[in-house]
């Protein structure tokens, strides 16, 4: 069963991201919304991927970010290539295509 992990807190909060990483199973996905989209900045993204549990996964986690929140914060130019942007429509589709969602905050 696939879980969509939803993160909404900025990188200053280490806990939600680390929990999301610890609960991550293969085939799950991570969606960054609200201030968690700041994880896509060039300086913070490597730190996010370096979270021990994510680094230890056999395959790289699938990471999405909410386009509306990225655009709102003026950071659309720097989104890393491996972060997939989704609109609210895509957000809905992600919740439907995963068996459940877990919100870490």
């Amino acid at each position, binding site marked *: 069963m696939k879980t969509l992990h*939803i993160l*909404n807190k900025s990188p200053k909060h280490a806990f939600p991201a680390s929990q999301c990483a610890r609960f991550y199973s293969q085939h799950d996905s991570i969606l960054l919304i609200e*201030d968690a989209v700041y994880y896509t900045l060039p300086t913070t993204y490597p730190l996010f991927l370096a979270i021990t549990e994510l680094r230890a996964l056999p395959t790289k986690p699938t990471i999405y970010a909410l386009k509306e*929140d990225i655009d709102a914060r003026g950071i659309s130019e720097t989104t890393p290539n491996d972060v997939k942007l989704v609109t609210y*429509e895509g*957000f809905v589709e992600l919740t*439907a295509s995963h068996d*459940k*969602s877990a*919100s870490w905050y």
Partner: protein
Amino acid sequence: MNYSIVVLGAPFSSPSAITALNFTQALLTQGHTVFRVFFYHEGVHCANQLSTPQQDEINLTNQWQTLKKQHNLDLVVCIAAGVKRGVLDQSEANRHEKPCSNINDAFDLSGLGQLVEATEQSDRVVTFGP
């Protein structure tokens, strides 16, 4: 698919109150159904009809009310969390001897059993954290 939404953030303290509204709108646009939107923790403030943002700011309470009119949504505010934070309907205002009520009539005050039922009855439950 049948969804329930849990809103834990208050307008102006957390973006999640707005995210939850946008998400619910997108859900309905795509033809999904919403079993219930449950307002808990600080999310109960979304139901306060006395909230009066400036005209060029979003009024979340009114937006939920409009969405309810269009889609007949079940908007439930946890009664314990609501009353403790000053979100009361007329019956609770009478019961607790308060001078006025303030809940927007698109919302119903009810017990946590409504959240239990929502998790039981829905295919998906999406929480918008505080």
